[in-house]
């Protein structure tokens, strides 16, 4: 298949990847090739989506276009061409570093997934945005500040004079991403590459950021390549999409066609998993029965440094007097944006924060927790077996052999073989690690498990497997889950009841169907609308 054969009107192409394979040097010698023969085109002013799971090569292909691969990575085969104007074609894949520097930021700019870490922490916002003008020597010095301020305003930021002298840590994630966009758009590039620009943001902010990208595309005729694992995001911005899997282009075409009549098996699976069309996993009519946990007028505090000189530490309420129950065999969801106190609540219930007030009744002694990031939550220097048996060792339960037996048994229950007992976390994939984390939570045979965004860091197809596993285990062991998520689709599929948290309070609660069909609180409505 030649480049852009399915590409609609790509006669006016802007960027072309033609049979591109990217490789990274291996430790001894030779290259490990991570993408093979990737070909597609993006037209002038077009919005193109690249979909795929982590490791599919979608980011790598775009980083290769700008020569930003790092770690010695390079294009080993094929070519990447850029056509800024009629009759001027730049062969990006064979340009020198110096030539590429002139293109980066000026003709093609890029924004990244993590707005929290993508800005330099020790430079002011103004200096970072203005650097674009300094680097590409655009316009007289006196007007620079004005142009930066105007651009920040265009990106939907207010109080720009103030913002100019601020540092990144003083801004929220959404604001930082707007700064990144302002920076990327300052020189009106012909192409903007957005690599998972909204993945790290709250759902309500996600839609606004995407609208901003769309606005710039329409206003300035900037072509956008939007990389995402989220098909909803792609659909809301792009007219055409490329589906990638394991370093290859699987399918490409117009978004509507691709979504309605996917040709390839992989696209179909991705769609089924991503669009919340997956079956409802919860059982009907479980609600009721004995309480596994009951919380009444429960508040959780954090200590803060006092404002006065040598003042005592002050307590600040993060969770403000919430009351709810979790019944036996029930899955209760908590939704809310970051900072609303949902994780803090779960941690306090697990006994990880002693600064609480109010009542907490539990049917088990030590509710266990599963955390979001399976890469950070397992100690990398210990074997899986050591980690699994740790709670038993601490409780002086069983002999060495018995502990090992229980750990292996639990590994099998979560779908891993006994051989994983002696392996280290870094040899496992994200999904496997989360299976281990779940096994760890089940080792003490507690009835209540607190799951804090357990699938948010995982690819959609892996998400699906983990959700199915969780429901299976719940039935098998008669567990109750308190399931925290920002993903309304996941909540809808899994939870019997749902609590909506906003600024430390529960603003709405009820059976999942009822809340989704007839939301009472304004914030709940906003959350549901933000679903793409």
């Amino acid at each position, binding site marked *: 298949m030649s480049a852009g054969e399915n590409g609609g009107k790509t006669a006016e192409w802007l960027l072309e990847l033609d049979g591109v394979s990217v490789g990274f040097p291996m430790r001894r010698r030779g290259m490990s090739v991570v993408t093979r023969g990737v070909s597609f085109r993006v037209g002038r002013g077009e919005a193109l989506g690249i979909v795929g799971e982590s490791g599919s090569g979608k980011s790598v292909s775009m980083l290769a276009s700008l020569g930003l691969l790092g770690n010695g990575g390079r294009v080993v085969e094929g070519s990447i061409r850029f056509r800024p104007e009629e009759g001027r074609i730049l062969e990006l894949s064979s340009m020198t570093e110096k030539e590429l520097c002139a293109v*980066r*930021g000026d003709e093609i700019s890029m924004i*990244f997934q993590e707005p929290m870490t993508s800005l*330099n922490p020790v430079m002011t916002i103004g200096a970072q945005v203005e650097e674009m003008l300094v*680097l590409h020597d655009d316009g007289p010095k006196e007007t620079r500040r004005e142009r930066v301020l105007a651009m920040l305003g265009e990106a939907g930021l207010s109080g720009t004079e103030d913002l100019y002298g601020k540092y990144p*840590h003083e801004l929220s994630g959404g604001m930082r991403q707007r700064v990144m966009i302002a920076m990327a758009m300052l020189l009106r590039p012909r192409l903007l590459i957005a690599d998972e620009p909204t993945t790290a943001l709250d759902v309500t902010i996600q839609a606004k950021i995407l609208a901003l990208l769309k606005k710039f595309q329409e206003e300035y005729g900037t072509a956008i390549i939007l990389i995402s694992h989220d098909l909803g995001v792609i659909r809301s911005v792009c007219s055409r999409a490329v589906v990638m899997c394991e370093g290859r282009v699987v399918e490409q075409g117009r978004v509507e066609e691709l979504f309605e009549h996917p040709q390839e098996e992989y696209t179909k699976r991705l769609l089924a998993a991503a669009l919340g069309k997956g079956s409802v996993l919860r059982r009907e009519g479980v609600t009721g029965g004995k309480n596994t946990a009951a919380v009444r007028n429960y508040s959780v505090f954090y200590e803060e440094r006092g404002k006065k*000189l*040598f003042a005592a530490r002050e307590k600040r309420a993060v969770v403000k007097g919430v009351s709810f129950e979790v019944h036996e065999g029930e899955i209760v969801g908590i939704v809310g944006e970051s900072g609303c106190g949902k994780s803090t609540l779960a941690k306090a219930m697990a006994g990880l924060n002693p600064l609480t007030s109010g009542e907490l009744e539990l049917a088990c002694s030590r509710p266990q927790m599963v955390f979001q990031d399976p890469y950070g939550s397992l100690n990398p220097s210990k074997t899986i077996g050591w980690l699994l048996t740790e709670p038993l060792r601490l409780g002086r339960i069983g002999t060495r052999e018995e502990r090992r037996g229980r750990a292996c048994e639990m590994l099998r229950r979560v779908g891993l073989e006994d051989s994983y007992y002696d392996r280290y976390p870094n040899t496992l994939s994200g999904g496997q690690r989360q299976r281990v984390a779940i096994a760890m939570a089940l080792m003490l045979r507690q009835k209540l498990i607190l799951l804090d965004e357990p699938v948010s860091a995982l690819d959609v197809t892996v998400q699906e497997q983990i959700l199915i596993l969780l429901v299976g285990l719940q039935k098998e062991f008669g567990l109750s889950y308190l399931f925290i998520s920002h993903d309304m689709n996941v909540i809808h599929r899994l939870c019997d009841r749902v609590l909506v948290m906003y600024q430390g309070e529960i603003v709405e609660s009820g059976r999942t169907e009822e809340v989704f069909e007839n939301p009472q609180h304004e914030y709940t409505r906003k959350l549901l609308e933000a679903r793409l």
Partner: protein
Amino acid sequence: MRYYVKKIVSLIMVLFLIMLLTFLAFQVIPGDGAVSRLGVDAEPEEIEALREALGLNKSLPERFFRFLGGAVRGDFGMSYQYSRPVSELLAARLPATVGLAAVSILMICIISVPLGLLCARREGGFADRAVTLLTQTLMAVPAFFLGMIITFLFGVVLKWFSPGGYIPPGESFGKYLHYMIFPAAAISIPKIAMTVKFLKTSVLRERKLDYVRTARSKGNTERAVLWRHVLRNALIPVITFMGMVIADVLAGSIVIEQVFNLPGVGRLLVVAIGNRDYPVVEAIVVYIAAIVLTVNFIVDILYQRVDPRVRIK
């Protein structure tokens, strides 16, 4: 501003505590100032008279506040051994010690930053491997041994300076500096080796972070990324480390002063301890503590300047 007030108040409190501990420590040590000064064969009346004169027969709190009051004015009493004011002795020895420290610190700063950056830029290349090998070796060599090698090589063989010589800065500042360079090299080379390694690790760690990728995507060249974006971030942990090194150097390099026969505070201390000349020892302990605390204070302020995230409003 409030932050600085808080820091200064706690600095003074810590210094007070150190003085109290120093004072008490010398009360616990057996041996009487008057006896050690007059010798054990002296007449009891003579000793009593001297005790009276030195204020040794006063109560403990009274003596402490006298010591404290004197220390604030820079008066640490009379040296038992030399019968001269301690402050005068210290003042005579400070130019050698402070000058040595200053030259060493300058050498550390000037040499280690470019070298560390060079290693990080050419990681795994020839320059990096050569410097790494050299730093690994020099880190393991004790300063006094380096001092001996330098004395032999530059003093005895090349005759660039005469070993054991020292010219006070008042006499000829140029010659004073000339004589300081060699002992300063002995002190700074192992520290440079450590700083280079530390900075290199820090730069390499920073270079993997997301904001560096952003900087590249804006069109910065590799050199601009390093100098404009990475260096300031990479220096943050290095500042803490350098603070420790600087305090260490300023507090006196007793061994090096011995090897190069420099009339510094370190040598004064060694002699004073040997002779139970407690006023001198007390004064030097307070001097070292004050230096370490002040350097820490400066490091904290620098930290605020470099890293806005720890800046307190």
